[in-house]
């Protein structure tokens, strides 16, 4: 698993294209670059250059420990949020049923 995480790196262009494939998330691919710069500045990702056969060297992005920690935090917060919403929806459901 750790090996998988270590190898999970992508270069800018492929990362941007991957993200733009998530329906409804991105309307302007160009705005992803400043976002990646912020992640770098906040030290959630790190970058390195690697030679490419098809052109100039590419910048690769990789998670840092802080980045993984941020994801863990988010996952935990999200679970709480989702459970809260589910509960509210459940209450809404029961209210609807009792009203009819």
């Amino acid at each position, binding site marked *: 698993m750790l090996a*998988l*995480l270590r*190898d*999970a*790196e*992508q270069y*800018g*262009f492929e*990362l*941007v294209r*991957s*993200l*733009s*494939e*998530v*329906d*409804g*998330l*991105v*309307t*302007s*691919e*160009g*705005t*992803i*670059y*400043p*976002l*990646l*710069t*912020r*992640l770098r500045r*906040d030290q*959630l*990702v790190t970058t390195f250059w690697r030679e490419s056969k*098809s*052109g*100039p060297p590419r910048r690769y*992005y*990789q*998670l840092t420990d802080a*980045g*993984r920690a*941020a*994801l863990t*935090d*988010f996952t935990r*917060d*999200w679970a709480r*949020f*989702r459970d809260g*919403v589910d509960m509210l929806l459940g209450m809404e459901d029961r209210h609807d049923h009792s009203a009819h």
Partner: protein
Amino acid sequence: MTTLHTDPLVADYLRRLDAAAAVLPPQRRAELVAEIREHVDEALRSTGPVDEVAVRNVLERLGPPDEIVDAAGDRTGLPPERGRVGVLEVVALLALLIPIVGWLVGSVLVLLSRTWTSPGAGSA
């Protein structure tokens, strides 16, 4: 540098981006333009025949220079608030965590993007 920059559409786009980016610190401005230039090169390398349609599509997908510069200007000096990571940031981090970014990750994240709103989220 490749000859792709001599394409007038690309040159014009990069010129407009550079002009819009004048509000950014010089180093940030140069870096952003370089990144976008590199993106255009890479995109056109992978599309096959480089005709006007291909160029226009790449630039269209990139989006308006103003939007890109706006995104670069967000929170430049401010530290991120605790727990306030935007949806797009999370998606980007997830994409790096999971080597196979495909329909599985995508469908989970569509759900996230629809129910999670934050001022930090991109242009979606």
